[in-house]
Each structure stands twice: as C-alpha cells, then as structure tokens.
C-alpha cells in the first residue's frame, strides 16, 4: 500500500489536505484531512447573553461572517419568539447578497480563474489577463461595500442584531448599491462564459440539499423532500483523521452550495439569471462537482439583479429604521441561511435569563465533506496511471476548489 499526499490545499480558505491511498496499482481510498485547529465555538457561546452571541459567531469565518451573524440572529429570534418586519428581512437579505457577491467573486476570479488560464495565482495571471482580475476585484469590492454598510465593517462588523440593526443604511448608500449593481451586471454576465468552459471534475452527488428560501429560510429542502429540519434526515459522524465531522442525508452522500441551489430553486432566480440557467440547464444537470463554479457565476448575476431590486424597493418605500423589542425568555430556535458555499445551520436553546444553554452549528463545508472525498476518489481513480503526477495533483486540487471549501468553518461542526 502506498499513498500520495496533497500536503496542503492552496487557493482555499484554511488548512486542509488529502491522502490518496493506492493498493495493487489502484486508487483504494481518499481522505480529506482538515488540520485547522478546533476553536470550540459551542463552548465559547455557552452561558453568554444572546445579545453578544452573533458577534462571537461571526468570528467562525471571515469570508462568510455575515451569513453566520444572520443565521445566529434568526436562530435567536425564533427561540425568543421575535418576528421582524419585512424591511429588516430585506436588509438582512441585502447583506447576504453582498456576501455572496464578495465571496463568489473571490472564489471565481482569484482562486479558480488561475486554473483555467494556467497560472499559480491571480497576481501572476494579472500580467497577461489584467482585465479579468481587475473585473473580479471590482465586483468583489462592491460586495464588500454592501457588507460594510449592512454588516458594519468589511469583516466582522457587529451591526446585525437580534430585533434589527445598530445602524440603518442611508438613502445615498442605497442609491449607490442600486447604481453599481446595474453597472456590474455586464461584467458578471461575461464571467459566466469563462466558467462554462471548465471541464467536468469530481463526482455527481446522490442528493442536493438547500434552504427553502433562496438565501434564508425556516426549513431545509432536498431533491426528494419538502421542508424538514436538519436533524430529521442528516446524520453526522466524527473521523479519526480530521477535525471536521462528516454528514449523510438519509445515509447517502449529498451536496450543498451554488449548484444545488440553482438546480433546486431556479424558479426563484431573477430574469437574467433565469435566462442563463435555461441556457446552461443541460450542462448543469450533468451534476459534476466542478459545475458548482458555473452555478456560482450564474448566482453572481442573480445577486446583482436582486441587490438592485431590493435597493429600489427600499428607496421607494423609505427606510423606517425601527428595531423590534426583544425580551429574554426560555426557548429553542434554528436559523437556516445559505452561506455562499451552502447551507448553514445555527441551532440554539436559550434559558429564562437570555443566556445560551445549548448551541449547535453545522457549516456548509462540513455538509460537503463526504462529497468532497467522493469527488476526489472518483477523479483520482479516473486519472491514476493515465495522467502524469503534476496533472494528477493539479486536477485533484481543482476538484476540491470547486466546492469553495471554507475550512475554518468546517471545524465547528459539533454538537454538545
């Protein structure tokens, strides 16, 4: 028995690698190893007052901090029986859209595009394809602008709170979002063509799982199931070689992320994004993991169109800026959000004083862990013995990258 190591994945967030086990000249097994250290967020928030919790949970991940804040706030509000008006939900959605724009632009233009153009990174790629890198950075900066306005800072702002916001956006800020989202649509539309050409890599998922709303909701859905709670059909197990746990849906490997979202929720897409979905429908339904990149590119178009819609809507009706009062009481609630890389769950029980008595967080990369292993296994099996070693390892890394894994997030998949 021999094994091939991918010592550390590059152009992904966090510290992880893989081991490909070869026996009798064949790929026998693949293990995705997460060696980012555990940070014990569930212990960190235990006994803390609900008001401070979203700010702490945001620290799980910088790329999707607002998804964590919003999921945390939704879980807490459900536990405390708080309902907020549409204006607040629209503003939260706007924040999630900003995060999706920032995160997808980072992933597609800076992390994946160098593979397609044959460079080690976007900085080296910029010497010949400066315009592509520049367009990516412009889109990414716009996503960050939204995160700064809604979230309070580009990274780890604390503006999203149970019951509403610390500060509400101004007319000028909303007008800028409306204007810029329109201007950037052209660039995003062009990106779809670039990522549509990528070769098929990885496995096909047996199931897709997503949240019932496009970016947030109160239940999960799957290709064969309407609204359910995560603990009804998803099981987790610990692994000896990783700080992340693995999940199965009804005992089978499943996928979360842009591809499952577009496939399960294309009805909810905005006009141009829906048109693009129709155009690439046949390709997307091939189901290979690498198509997640194409789905992300289509979502970039969706997010820009939807940002414009929401900004216009809020400008038309005017911002009231009134928070809903929140009173501590005993309760339990789950927040479901679509982080850029897939389903994110924050589950809390709160005691009568308003302190956290239980929490469980499951992140998209944890949900995708088994699917990442399966994809690497199939890709390795296909290529072992026929590709040279450099290509072999390069293609395996590209396969992992398609999941847009966020390894910092994945080590918080724990239940108390």
């Amino acid at each position: 028995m021999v094994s091939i190591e991918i010592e550390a994945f590059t152009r992904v967030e966090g510290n992880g690698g893989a081991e490909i086990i070869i026996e009798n000249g064949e790929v026998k097994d693949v293990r995705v190893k997460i060696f980012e250290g555990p940070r014990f967020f569930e212990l960190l928030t235990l006994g803390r007052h609900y008001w401070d919790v979203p700010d702490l949970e945001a620290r799980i991940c910088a790329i999707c901090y607002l998804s964590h804040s919003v999921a945390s706030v939704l879980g807490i509000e459900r536990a405390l029986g708080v309902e907020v008006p549409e204006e607040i939900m629209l503003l939260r959605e706007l924040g999630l859209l900003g995060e999706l724009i920032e995160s997808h632009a980072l992933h597609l233009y800076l992390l994946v595009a160098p593979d397609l153009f044959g460079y080690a990174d976007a900085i080296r790629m910029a010497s010949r394809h400066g315009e592509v890198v520049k367009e990516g950075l412009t889109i990414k900066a716009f996503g960050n602008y939204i995160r700064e306005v809604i979230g309070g800072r580009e990274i780890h702002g604390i503006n999203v709170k149970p019951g509403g916001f610390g500060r509400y956006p101004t007319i000028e800020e909303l007008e800028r979002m409306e204007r810029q989202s329109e201007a950037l649509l052209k660039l995003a539309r062009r990106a779809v063509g670039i990522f549509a050409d990528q070769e098929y890599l990885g496995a096909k998922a047996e199931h897709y799982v997503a949240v019932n709303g496009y970016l947030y909701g109160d239940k999960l859905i799957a290709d064969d199931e309407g609204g359910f709670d995560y603990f009804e059909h998803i099981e987790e197990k610990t692994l000896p070689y990783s700080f992340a746990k693995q999940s199965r849906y009804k005992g089978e490997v499943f996928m979360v992320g842009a591809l499952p979202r577009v496939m399960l929720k294309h009805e909810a897409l905005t006009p141009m994004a829906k048109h693009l979905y129709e155009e690439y429908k046949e390709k997307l339904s091939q189901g290979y993991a690498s198509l997640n990149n194409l789905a992300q590119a289509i979502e970039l178009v969706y997010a820009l169109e939807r940002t414009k819609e929401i900004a216009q809507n809020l400008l038309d009706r005017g911002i009231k800026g009134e928070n809903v009062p929140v009173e501590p009481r005993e309760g339990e609630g789950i927040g479901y959000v679509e982080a850029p890389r897939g389903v994110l769950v924050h589950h809390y029980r709160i005691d009568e004083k308003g302190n956290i008595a239980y929490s469980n967080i499951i992140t998209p990369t944890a949900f995708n862990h088994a699917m990442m292993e399966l994809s690497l296994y199939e890709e390795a099996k296909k290529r072992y013995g026929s590709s040279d070693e450099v290509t072999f390892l390069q293609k395996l890394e590209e396969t992992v990258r398609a999941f847009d894994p966020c390894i910092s997030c994945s080590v918080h998949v724990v239940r108390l």
Partner: protein
Amino acid sequence: MMLKLGVFELTDCGGCALNILFLYERLFDLLEFYEIKEFHMASSFREHDTLDVAIVTGSVSTQRDLNLLHYARNHSNYLIALGTCATHGDVQASVEGKIREKLERVYGTRANPMKALDSTPIVQHVAVDYALPGCPYDKDELYQVLMNLAKGVEPPTKDYPVCVECKLNEYECVLVKREIPCLGPITLGGCNAACIKSHLGCIGCRGPLPKEANPASEFEILKELGYDEEYIRRKFKTFARGELRW
C-alpha cells in the same frame, strides 16, 4: 532588491489573510517592493528559503501550528504577528478548560490524534518584531507597516484607546449617553471606532490598551449600570483572556 514576503496562517477564521487581498490595487503597489514566497490562501506558488518578512496570523491551536510558527520564525528576519489571534489569542483562547476536556465535551472522546493544543497567541511562543492586533486589523495600518519596512523605517505603534477615535468622529458616547456596555475606554484604538459607528458598544476586539488601561474602573461603571459581574467578566475576557486584571 525585492523583499521576500511569506504569509503563514495558523488556526483562525481566515480574515487576517483575506484582509490582505482586500487591499485591492494597493496590494499591487506593495508588490513593487515585495515578492510573495508563500501565501497559501492566494497562491499555489511556494518557494521556501529565507524570508525578509514573515506575516503570521492565527493562534497556536495544534502541534502543526506550533511547528509552522517555528518554521516562520527561523526562516525570517522580521516577523509580524497579525491580528488578535496572533497577538492576544482571540475568542478561541477564551474558552476555558484543558484541551482533552474540551475535546470530550465537543467530540465525545478524549483521544487527540490530530494533536490539538489549548489555543494561545503566538507572542507566547516566539519573539515577534511587530504586533498588529485587531479582529480584523485595519488594512490601511498593515499597508503602512509594510511600506515603512520597505523603506527601512521601523513602523510606529498605536497607543491610544478607541475613545479617541470616537471623539475625532464626533460619535455620541454610547456608554455615558445610552448606558450600553462599551469597552472603548480600555481597548486599543485603530479601528476608527467601527462598532460605535453602528451605534453599538465596542466589544474589545483589538485587545486591551497597553499599560494605561483601567479595567477596575470600567468594571465598576458597568456594575453601577446594572450589568452582573459574570456578564462583565466574560465580556472582558472575550478577546484577550487573562490580560485584564481588576
């Protein structure tokens, strides 16, 4: 001569490495002076020889982190501890209890095959040449530090509380006027009072103000406002466990 730069990520949220990419065009300005030899979030390119400047983010939370930290220290002339995980330990260091107890409570086993450690800041393990806290740090400040180093100037450090930035921005004091628990008076400034801009209290993410912080007085003020002692204690310890005495 181009300076050789390496970015090493230990256990963290990825934000401190990401924030470097958020410099956008100014990152390309820095690349007039620096050559990136290691930055795994951004590049597949790696060339391991000696570095002029090593940036280390994150806390030491595994044996691997510790080995990587020693590698970075032994191969660099100037080491920057970047972000509150590196300088004070951040939220993961505030989780109490011994590692095996924590593993048992969370993973259901005391076994530790991946060699996890209790999270500690890197300043506890190696000598650092410059410490820039913040969760995340202010990217303009990092830009200035790297530009100073490129010109051979030792970068200055900040030494004033968040309150100073609040005053400069003419924000209303949320602690005095709205009785919101705000750690601004005892927290190192440099964030441009981001949380108070959101009409919320400072949560202390840049760590305590060196030397001059008066946590005992802040503790009394919050107690008088009706916050219970345990609540205040945990708030104080969130980003810099064990550093504030009162």
